């Protein structure tokens, strides 16, 4: 055990893992990965953001509240 696991913060490491996992599972559009990751990692991904990207992944027209993503 000679290498550090802290090259990235735990949140960044986990955030990237979650996004790639959701894309792999078809729950997230890969085009949204770059936009969503910083907000997911920074704790600023709001309900409206989640709704927008999940609606997009379902092919539904996202709208309504203003979102970060």
């Amino acid at each position, binding site marked *: *055990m*000679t*290498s*550090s*696991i*802290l090259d990235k*913060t*735990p*949140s960044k*490491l*986990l*955030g990237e*893992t*979650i996004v790639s*996992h*959701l894309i792999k*599972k078809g*729950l*997230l559009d890969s085009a949204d990965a770059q936009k969503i990751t910083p*907000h*997911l*990692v*920074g*704790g*600023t*991904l*709001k*309900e409206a*953001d*989640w*709704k927008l990207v*999940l*609606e997009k*992944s*379902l092919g*539904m027209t996202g709208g309504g509240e203003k979102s970060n993503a």
Partner: protein
Amino acid sequence: MLKKLEVEALRGATKKFVLPFEHGKRITIVYGENGAGKSTICDAIEFVCQGTISSLDDRGLGRTEGYWPSTGKTQNDIVVAIEASNGTWVGKFVGAKPKSSPSTGLPFVQVLRRGKVLNFIASQPKNRYDAISPFIDISQIELSEASLRRLLETEQRNRETAITRVTENLAAVENFWKQAGSPGDDGLSWAQIELTKDVAAIKADVAKMEDLVRVMENLARAKGNVDTAAAQVSTAQQTYDAAHNKAETARLSSPEQIAEIVPILEAAQAYFHSHSNPTECPLCTSKEFAPGLTDKVTQQLSSVRIFREAVEQERTSIQSLIFAKQSAESQKAALLTAAKDTAERLQETMPSDITVPPALLESAQAFAATSSLEFAERLKNLSDTFGTSLKTNLDKRKESIGFLDTLKRAVAMHDENLTVATDLAKLIPRISTTLDEVEIVRRGFVDTILGKISTRVGTLYETIHPGEGLNKISLLLDPAKRASLDVRSSFPGTTGAPPPAYFSDSHLDTLGLCIWLALAEMRDPGNTILVLDDIVTSADEPHVERIIELLYEISESFKHCVFTTHYQAWRAKYRWGWIKNGECHFVELLKWEHATGLQLVGSLPPIEELRDLLGKNPPSPQQVCASAGVTLEAILDFITLLYECSVPRRKSNPTLGDLLPSIKAKLRVALKVDRQNIAADGTTTTVTIPLGPLLDELERIAQARNVFGCHFNQIAQHLPETDAIQFATVTLELADNLIDPQVGWPRSDKSGNDWANAKKTRILHPLKQPS
């Protein structure tokens, strides 16, 4: 690796203290009695690298910066410089805060002090979490995850609301449907048909009907105005007639020239106002009529005023009559206009369900043809009844429009809420699945890290306590509590037990150490200076050797390790080369005094001391024999224990006389060392050296040790001093063959064939004493 540490005016460093780190040695062991200043060295490294000093924490001092300077010094006097292979950094106070320059590239420091070892296990779960949080703090992700969870809850509520609204909207539509007599199959189908009705056409009819009602109302109003005007003319005529009669009467009773004498009378009245009681007429100067002249003038003026008022009334009344007649004509014209508007509207096309009474229509046509007042009035009279029925019809139409609007809204809301409910029925499972997946990944992430740490802790712990079965360490986050870490372990007969419940203090100590080391290893060890301040004590005696070996092993990961100790056994093991000294730099501190501060003292291992004594010219027989005797006893003690030779050990420590004879002939013949030699160019050669002849020679001249090295003895005068030098020389040769000062003694039988040191630079044969 570190090259040098310079400390000035910090804690125990009352004088400038310099600690040069030995080149190529990753481990520095600082030995010193309690109070020698070991912690000051740790403080200095922490100060320059992190701007903190943790040794004073938890002592009830509050802010401790005021105690960082040496006594008699100030914060501004503190200077700590650390030189490493990749740069030099200097720490000082700048204002009230410590700053290091340059501020970048500083090595990271992990300092573990004795008090913290046990605390890690015994402290609150929250404190343990704080220690481990740099590796598992995913609070930001949890915030985003909470948003997703809230979204799920919100949308579930929204869907329930939408479904409720759909039911309500449907009930409203069905209510309308029932009011309409429940035509068709169901309310919604009926409503859809109803909404196809041309509301615009209805609205256009309404507009047309409203216009007709408006002109008919204008007509009625105009007729009323004409009647009123006629009555006003009649009244004005009567007023005028009366005024005219009165004026005519006044004219007859007044002189003809009344109009001409009025100014004369008014002038006389003005004159008499300032000349009252005249004695003669101011015109004819007659005195005859002078008395009562003033009253007569006044009387005549009064008669004139009555006349004038009658004339004025006649004049105004005729004006009123003229105005009334003009107004009556104007109203008649308005009536004709209103009648014209009405007649035109009545002749236009009406909504299909509206029928204009024929008489009314004829009247309209007649008016249109004549534009006479008579037909206008007739038109008005006939339109009254029709107007009432028209208004009723109009109200029904308006009501119909309102109903359709309400029905439209109800159906639109129903459709809208149905769409929302349908969309959410699709979205909610996606949110739920996403949340499940995020939770799975998040839990897996934390479990993996905790698992890695737990496994590493278990491995480290097993190294110190091999075979005790206490290495099943679990680090668990309490899901019911925020930022809370539990430590659990298996213990014979139970699992998942908190270690403090079953472990001895010694075991808890090493467990705390292992957790701390495992965490330190995970945090950029290549750029970390690992500082252990006096964490090994005599309390750890049963496992101290393994702890030290463990520290040596893990040190390979770190940039540099500084271990301080007051534990004499560690010093002895280093001095005798019983541990891997090759990577280790050992320094000793003298007892601290305020006047001198921290002081290093030279410390030679016994074998090097013997070599040093033998190198002197001439060597002292007494000194070399004394030194060689101790070294030889250490070697023989090692060999006899290794081969389980029969040595009397009960009463006291065995001496040379006990140890040498216990190595029997068969073993002596078999004892050989494969010694690895490294040439200057790095090439290695191995030679096999039999130890038997060396032991035989030492036994032959063993008395030299006591004769020269231990006691005053007259025999010494009869023994050649060459025996003393030979005793020391052969002992050193035996030591050099058996012990590699960099790697240590051949004490490992892992190969199953022989005894070897860590790097196999010395391999001792045989494995067992020959039978």
